C-alpha cells in the first residue's frame, strides 16, 4: 500500500491483502468466503463494528 498513505494509516495497513469491513472489523490475508461472511455479520450487528 503506497498509493493512499492516509488510508493506509487510518486503517492501520501494514500487511496486504488487508480487508476492512465497516470501520473497525478487519483481517489480513486471503481467507475463505465463510470467514469474510462472519466478519460482515459482525460489522453489520447493532453497535458491533469491532471484534
Amino acid at each position, binding site marked *: 500500500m503506497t498509493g493512499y498513505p492516509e488510508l493506509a494509516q487510518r486503517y492501520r495497513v501494514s500487511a496486504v491483502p*488487508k*480487508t476492512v469491513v465497516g470501520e473497525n472489523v478487519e483481517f489480513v490475508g486471503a481467507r475463505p468466503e465463510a470467514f469474510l461472511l462472519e466478519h460482515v455479520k459482525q*460489522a453489520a450487528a447493532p453497535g458491533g463494528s469491532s471484534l
Partner: protein
Amino acid sequence: MIVSLLSDDIAAELKAEFASLVNPVRLLVFSQALADPESEQVKRLVEELAALDSHLSAESYNYILDRETAETLKVARTPAIAILSGDKDYGIRFYGLPVAHEFGTLVDAILDVSKGESGLAEETQAALDKLDHNVHIQVFSTPT
C-alpha cells in the same frame, strides 16, 4: 506512437473471456483536473479494455467538475473505476491503477457485473440477504 498497455496476447485472452459477457457494462473512470500520470494510465487501460468487446463502454469523469456523478456513486478519491451495468450499481469501486493481480480482479468484477452473479455460495447469499443495511468492504492490496 502510443504503446498499448495490453499486449496482443493479453488482449486476445481477454477477448475470449469477454465472449461470455451478458449485459452491457459501463466502466466509469474518475480522475483529477490536473494531468496525473496514474489517472491517465487508468483511463487508457479502461479505454483499451472497452475496445475489446461491444458490451463494454468507457466513460471519463472529472472528479471535481462532475461532482454530482462522483457523489451519487460515492466515489471517494481518484483515480477510481466504478463498474456498473446500465444504472445497476453493485457498489464495486477500484482505486488506483489495477495492475498485476488486481488486473485479474478487475476483469472478474466486469464478468460478474455483466452476468449479475456474485459467484458466492447460496448459503452466503442467503445470509447476506438478511442484512438490513449495506456494509462497506475495503480490500487493501499492493501491486505485486
